[in-house]
C-alpha cells in the first residue's frame, strides 16, 4: 500500500473521528448537564459552585496534560507537581498578607514552570521515552512535596482563599469557574494561535518535519512541559484556594485522571491533534459524574467503573469508525 493511498484511506476515518472529537465532547457534556437537571431538579447556584470547585484542580491538570500530549509527550508527574505547588503555597502563604500571597502565587506558578521544564529537559537530553522519565520524576517531585510539608497543614489568608472559593460576580458564576476560564483563556488561547502554539502542534505531529520548518523540536518539547508545569502550578494553588491547606499526597489522584480527561476530551495520544476545551469539559464531566451518582444514591464506586467504561467507549468510537471503514 503506498503512502499516498494509505493516507487517503485513513483520511476518511480521520475526518469522521476528528468530527466526533470536535463535537462529541461538548455534546456529551451538554447531555450530562441535561441529565443532571432531570435527576436533580433543584440543581442551582450551590451545585454550580460545587461543580466548579471540584473540577478546578482536575481541569488544570487536564490542561497541563493536554498541552504535553499535543506536543507529542505524556506527563505522569502531573499529580506530584500539583502536590508540590499545593504544599509550597500552603506553607509559604500561611502567615503572608493578601498581597504577598498574590506575589507568592506567581512565584509558585513559576516554580511549576521550572519543574515542567526540568522534566522536558531530562527527556530531551537523556532521550529516554517520556513515560519513563516522568514516571520517575513523579517519584522525585512526590518526595519533594513530602520534604516541604510532611503532613497536611499550612494555610493562606482568607481573602486569598476567597479568590477561588467565592462567587463575587454572580452566584451562578462562581470564582472557580471564572478562574478556570481566565487561566485557560489568558495563557493557552493566545499561545495556541501563535507561532509557538503551531510549533507545539508541529512537534507533536512530526518532529522532523517541524525541525525542517524551522522549529527547534527540543526547545518546543521543553516549552510544552514547562507550560504544563505552569498549569500544574495553577492547579496546586487552586487546590490551596479550595481546600485552604496543603496536603503532600493530595496530587496523587490527578495523574491518571488527567490522562483520562485528555482521552475522554478527544485529544489523541499520538500528539499533534486536539485542543484544551475537550479535556476541560471532560474534567467537568468527570466531576459531574459522582455528583449524579450521589443524587441517584448509587454506589459511587460504580463511578470508577463508569469512568473506565467512558474512557474505553470514547476511544472505541474512533476505533469502531475505522473498523467499519475497513470492512466496507
Amino acid at each position, binding site marked *: 500500500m503506498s503512502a499516498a493511498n494509505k493516507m487517503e484511506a485513513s483520511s476518511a476515518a480521520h475526518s469522521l473521528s476528528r468530527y466526533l472529537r470536535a463535537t462529541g465532547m461538548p455534546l456529551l457534556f451538554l447531555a450530562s448537564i441535561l441529565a443532571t437537571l432531570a435527576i436533580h431538579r433543584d440543581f442551582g447556584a450551590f451545585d454550580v459552585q460545587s461543580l466548579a470547585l471540584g473540577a478546578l484542580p482536575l481541569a488544570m491538570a487536564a490542561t497541563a496534560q493536554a498541552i504535553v500530549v499535543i506536543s507529542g509527550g505524556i506527563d505522569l508527574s502531573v499529580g506530584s507537581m500539583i502536590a508540590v505547588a499545593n504544599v509550597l503555597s500552603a506553607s509559604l502563604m500561611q502567615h503572608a498578607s493578601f498581597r504577598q500571597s498574590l506575589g507568592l502565587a506567581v512565584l509558585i506558578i513559576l516554580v511549576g514552570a521550572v519543574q515542567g521544564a526540568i522534566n522536558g529537559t531530562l527527556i530531551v537530553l537523556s532521550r529516554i521515552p517520556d513515560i519513563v522519565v516522568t514516571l520517575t520524576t513523579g517519584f522525585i517531585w512526590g*518526595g519533594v512535596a513530602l520534604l516541604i510539608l510532611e503532613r497536611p497543614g499550612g494555610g493562606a489568608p482568607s481573602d486569598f482563599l476567597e479568590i477561588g472559593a467565592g462567587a463575587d460576580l454572580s452566584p451562578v458564576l462562581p470564582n472557580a469557574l471564572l478562574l478556570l476560564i481566565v487561566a485557560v483563556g489568558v495563557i493557552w488561547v493566545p499561545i495556541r494561535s501563535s507561532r509557538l502554539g503551531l510549533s507545539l502542534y508541529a512537534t507533536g505531529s512530526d518532529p522532523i518535519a517541524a525541525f525542517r520548518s524551522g522549529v527547534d523540536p527540543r526547545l518546543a518539547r521543553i516549552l510544552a512541559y514547562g507550560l504544563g508545569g505552569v498549569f500544574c502550578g495553577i492547579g496546586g494553588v487552586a487546590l490551596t484556594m479550595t481546600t485552604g491547606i496543603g496536603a503532600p499526597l493530595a496530587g496523587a489522584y490527578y495523574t491518571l485522571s488527567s*490522562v483520562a480527561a485528555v482521552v475522554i476530551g478527544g485529544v489523541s495520544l499520538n500528539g499533534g491533534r486536539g485542543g484544551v476545551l475537550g479535556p476541560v469539559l471532560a474534567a467537568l464531566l468527570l466531576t459531574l459524574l459522582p455528583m449524579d451518582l450521589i443524587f441517584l444514591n448509587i454506589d459511587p464506586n460504580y463511578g*470508577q467503573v463508569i469512568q*473506565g467504561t467512558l474512557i474505553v467507549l470514547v476511544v472505541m468510537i474512533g476505533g469502531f469508525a475505522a473498523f467499519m471503514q475497513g470492512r466496507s
Partner: protein
Amino acid sequence: MSKALALLRGHTILALVLLLAVFVLGIEIARPGTVTPLWVSNALLFAAPLAILGAGQTLVMLTGGIDLSVASVATGSAYILATNAASGDGFALALALVLGLAVGIVNGLGVAVLRVQPLVMTLGTGLMVGGAMTVYSQYMLASQPHVPAMIQTLGAGKLIGLIPVDLFLWAAIAALMLFTLHRTGFGRLLYAVGDNREACHLAGIRVWRVLFLDYVLCALLAAIAGLVLVGGTNAADLSLADVYLLPSVACVIIGGTSIFGGRGGYAGTIVGALILTVLTSILTLLDVPEPVKQILYGAIILSLAAAYARLTA
C-alpha cells in the same frame, strides 16, 4: 576500557548483571553482614511476583503496547481467590484466573480489533476492574475469606528454609517466556508486530490474533502474579498490587525492552526485576527519611534508564 565497553554494548544483559552485582556489593559494603543466603532467598521470593507481572508487561511492550490494568487484575485475582476459597480451593483458583482471562479478552478486543491505544484501553479496564472489585467487596464482608494453604506455600514457602517456592513457578514461566520469544512463531510475531504492524498485515499475518492472544496472556500472567502476592501476604486487600504497577513497567524498561516495541526480551526483565527488588531492600535498610527514599528511588531508576540509553545508542 573501550573494549570492555564494546563488550557491554554487544551484551547489554551483561551490563545489567554487572549493575546488579554492584548493587549487592554496595549493600554489603554499606552494611556488612547483610548479604546472607537468607537475604538472597528473600530477594528472589519478592522478585518473583514482580518478574511475573513483568513477563506479561514484556509481552505487550514488545508489540509497542503497555498494560496499565495488570495491578487491578492481580489485586482482583487475589481478592476473588480469598473471598471464594470457602467454596473450594480449586473453584476459587479457577475463578481468579477467569478474571484474568476476561480482562485479557476485553483488552485484546479493544487493542487488537478496535485498535484502541493500549495505554488508554488498559487504563480504562484497570479503572473498571478496580471499581467493580470495590463494589464486589461490599457484598463480601461475610464470605469467610482465607488464602488456600497451597497458595500460601506458593507465595511464602521455602524449601529447606532457603529456596523460595515461587522461584520454581518463576523459573518455569521464565523458561517458557524465553523459549516462546526466541524459538516460536508466536514469539517472532510479537517482535514483528511491534516493529511494523503494517508489514505483518502485508505478509499475510492476521495481526489482531497476535495482539489478542498477547493481551490475554499478559492478563493471565497478572492474575497468576496476584496469586503469588496473596500467598505472600496471607490476606487480600483491594490495594494489594497497586504498588507493583509502576515497577512492572520499570523493570521491563530497565531490562532494555523498547517501549516502542520490536526490541528487547525477557532476560533483561528478569534482571530488571531483581535490580528493583534489591533497590527496595537497600532503601529499607538505609536510615533516611521517607521522602528521601522516594527521591532516591526515582532518581536511581532514571539514571539507570539513562545509562542504558547511552549504552545502546
